[in-house]
């Protein structure tokens, strides 16, 4: 049972990196390749149908952390207090930017929220590198450790590259490059590698610190019937919004 929930937890966190990684990457690239408002609109429109289905993987990670590793939950989040607060605020302003940017017409309004999308994406990407390093060292190291900061830069660059690959797959004209679905899968795997490496190293610790079998069993029984629906819903998102004729629809809601 512990092993199954470890696999679920690993799938959720690495899935978050592989999926939300390209949303954050697109956000990072907005000032780089989105020089004009129209290009930025098309970049956001390209990722928009995926964002809600992608970011929710982290919500699930946090829930699983509470249910499966309640001890780690308190230790990890409290141990990284300032970083978690900063990352939450980054996440909040990124999301607000997406939801609000098109609610009022006008270049100033939209440009402002585009900046919050990029700033939020940067905060989250960089924060993940720092958080993973802290997790790998058992939350004992300083948050400003050079290696942690370096990992922050690495994750940021990785997400930006993954985001660029995504754009090359879904909106080649906007990205200036053309990428296949296979290339996107590979960049997704690369984006998930840092998370996979840390979770792989933490396997013995996590198996030791799982919630008791009774709790894991109840959650398994309750979650299992919904697992096929969850998979189906995610597959639908990719099926309906894959590239093709007029894949990137403007005006998009985001």
């Amino acid at each position, binding site marked *: 049972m512990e092993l199954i929930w470890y696999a679920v937890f690993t799938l959720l966190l690495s899935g978050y990196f592989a999926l939300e990684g390209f949303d954050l990457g697109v956000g990072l690239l907005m000032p780089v390749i989105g020089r004009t408002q129209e290009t930025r609109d098309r970049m956001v429109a390209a990722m928009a149908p995926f964002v809600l289905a992608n970011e929710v993987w982290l*919500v699930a990670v946090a*829930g699983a952390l509470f249910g499966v590793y309640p001890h780690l939950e308190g230790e990890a989040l409290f141990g990284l207090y300032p970083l978690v607060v900063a990352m939450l605020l980054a996440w909040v302003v990124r999301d*607000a930017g997406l939801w609000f940017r098109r609610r009022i017409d006008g270049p100033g309004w939209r440009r402002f929220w585009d900046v919050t999308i990029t700033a939020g994406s940067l905060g989250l990407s960089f924060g993940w590198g720092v958080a993973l390093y802290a997790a790998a060292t058992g939350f004992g190291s300083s948050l400003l450790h050079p290696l942690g900061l370096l990992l922050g830069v690495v994750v940021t660059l990785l997400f930006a590259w993954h985001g660029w690959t995504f754009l090359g797959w879904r909106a080649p004209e906007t990205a200036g490059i053309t990428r296949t679905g296979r290339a996107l899968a590979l960049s997704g795997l690369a984006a998930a590698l840092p998370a996979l490496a840390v979770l792989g190293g933490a396997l013995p610790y996590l198996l030791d610190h799982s919630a008791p079998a009774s709790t894991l069993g109840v959650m398994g029984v309750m979650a299992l019937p919904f697992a096929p629906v969850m998979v189906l819903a995610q597959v639908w998102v990719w099926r309906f919004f894959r590239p093709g004729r007029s894949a990137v629809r403007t005006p998009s809601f985001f």
Partner: protein
Amino acid sequence: MDALDLARTQFAVTGSLHFLFVLLTLGLAPLVAIMHTRWTRSGAPEHERAVRFWGQVYVTNYAVGIVTGLVMEFQFGLSWSGLSRYAGDVFGAPLAMETLVAFFLESTFLGLWIFGWGRLPKWLHLACIWAVTLTAYASAWFIMAANSFLQNPAGAVERGGRMELVDAAALFTNKTLVFSFPHVISAGLFTAGMMLVGASAYRLRRGGEDAAFFTRSMRTGIVTAALGITLTVGFGYAQFGGIQEGKFKGDTAATPLALMMDVGNLMFFLAVFLMLPLVRFLPRWRWTHRLLMILTPVPFVLAVCGWLARELGRQPWMVWKKLTVADAMSPGLTPGMITVSLVGFTAVLGLLALTDYALIARLIRRGPRDLDLGAAAEERPAPALSL
């Protein structure tokens, strides 16, 4: 204030903000789903306008519900790690189910609903909004189950200084859950109904071309509000059977409770014995519209009072008669840390909440036209013309 007071303030502020948006989400979701069903069956343009307009109000409100919810979820680990250490094996299960199953599906289907407009087959598109509604209700149920465990730790025993889950059925049929869940759901319906009434009153009072549209909306709102408040009051009184002894002894919890009940009863009489019988006339009686507009925020205030009563009445316990709030606080949390996060969360979420309400007000002022939700593809000028 010491760290404990600050941490409690942070939870109260973010929790109340979150609930203001969630409350309307819970009430509007089924209404939008019903409107969408009508549109799918009739294909009528006026039905489509209703879905797109109230749907856009719904998703605009949803945005701040999400972002405040994110902060809520992580706050348990940030400020209250003592709770997960002591009762995480039990309390964590419903929370995990909420995020893992309910919210995961809700968010995925909402994305499909918003961005699949005009792309998904129409019955599948309709199924998406119903899935969003059902999973939103499931979310509320899991969250209320987690909260009810704090009120009445059923289904668990203490072993070796920690709570252990022994009876999952008891956890999910908690006597403080069975009536509080429908109470919250009905309060959402009441709130959404009053929102439709208030917004329609504003539009009808001003006059203009959308009179027919907002006349229908006001009638829908009145019927929903009357149904919602009746159930809310009924399930509200039903909760007293399962309440912890001595919960409302102190003034701190008894005051918001009394306010909620007195004003709630007044609203019940107003909605059921005045608004409902006059449902055919109120859209035309412009002199009533100002009063109907003023009533719009009342359900929100009552809902926050309800939470204050429920949560303040639990003090000083985090888990009733098992774990105090002071013991549940993360050890080592300093006033400095919590002050920074309290200021950060309050400022950012508060500003976003105000922005969001301004956007909803603007949407209502402009009426059901030029909507973003379900907008058809832009007519892009041919390249030759744009040179």
